[in-house]
């Protein structure tokens, strides 16, 4: 498919900054103590407040909307599995690869993962996009 070929890969870096975290809570009102109370998070076995998993979906959205070779794209479906906690100011490397293209319906599938600075996978998933004609 024009613009997308199997095994094309993309690499980006993201950081869950204080601004990202606080804006997410301001907008979506999920202030669960796991995300906002260090004592609570530690009591549950985490080293600090756990960042919302859906912040990573926002990064995926940025990747699809802003980082592909073309802008006429739409997300058809997205799956994500969280493997390890993400903490404030974690620097995440994002890797995505084209796994399948479906020329008949102008669709492309990617697999992706986020790794933290210790190279631990914190989340992985799959996205299918459509190319708008």
């Amino acid at each position: 498919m024009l613009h997308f070929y199997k095994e094309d890969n993309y690499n980006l870096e993201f950081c869950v900054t204080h601004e990202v975290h606080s804006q997410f809570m301001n907008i979506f009102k999920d202030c669960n103590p796991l995300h906002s109370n260090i004592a609570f998070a530690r009591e549950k076995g985490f080293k600090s407040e756990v960042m919302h998993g859906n912040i990573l979906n926002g990064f995926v959205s940025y990747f699809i909307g802003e980082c592909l070779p073309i802008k006429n794209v739409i997300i058809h479906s997205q799956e994500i599995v969280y493997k390890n906690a993400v903490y404030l100011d974690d620097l995440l490397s994002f890797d995505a690869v084209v796994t399948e293209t479906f020329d008949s319906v102008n669709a492309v599938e990617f697999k992706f993962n986020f790794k933290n600075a210790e190279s631990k996978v914190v989340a992985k998933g799959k996205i299918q996009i459509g190319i708008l004609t």
Partner: protein
Amino acid sequence: MQRLDILKEVNDIFIDVLDDESIVLSEQTTAADVDGWDSLTHIQLIVAIEKKFKLRFTSKDIQSWKDVKEMIDCIVTK
């Protein structure tokens, strides 16, 4: 794979994609006969069928289908 087996596999894909256990396709079924078979779900159906049968259609293929029979004919010839 026999046509009937293909029809059953395609039926299962329709049930899964359209979240409708009541779907029973026949070779005469058209998009107008299936609730929810619209342009968006059509993409998901085609992607799922291509994955399941490990084949690729062309846009010309899918535009020519008038009913499930023609879809199955196309799967058989791939």
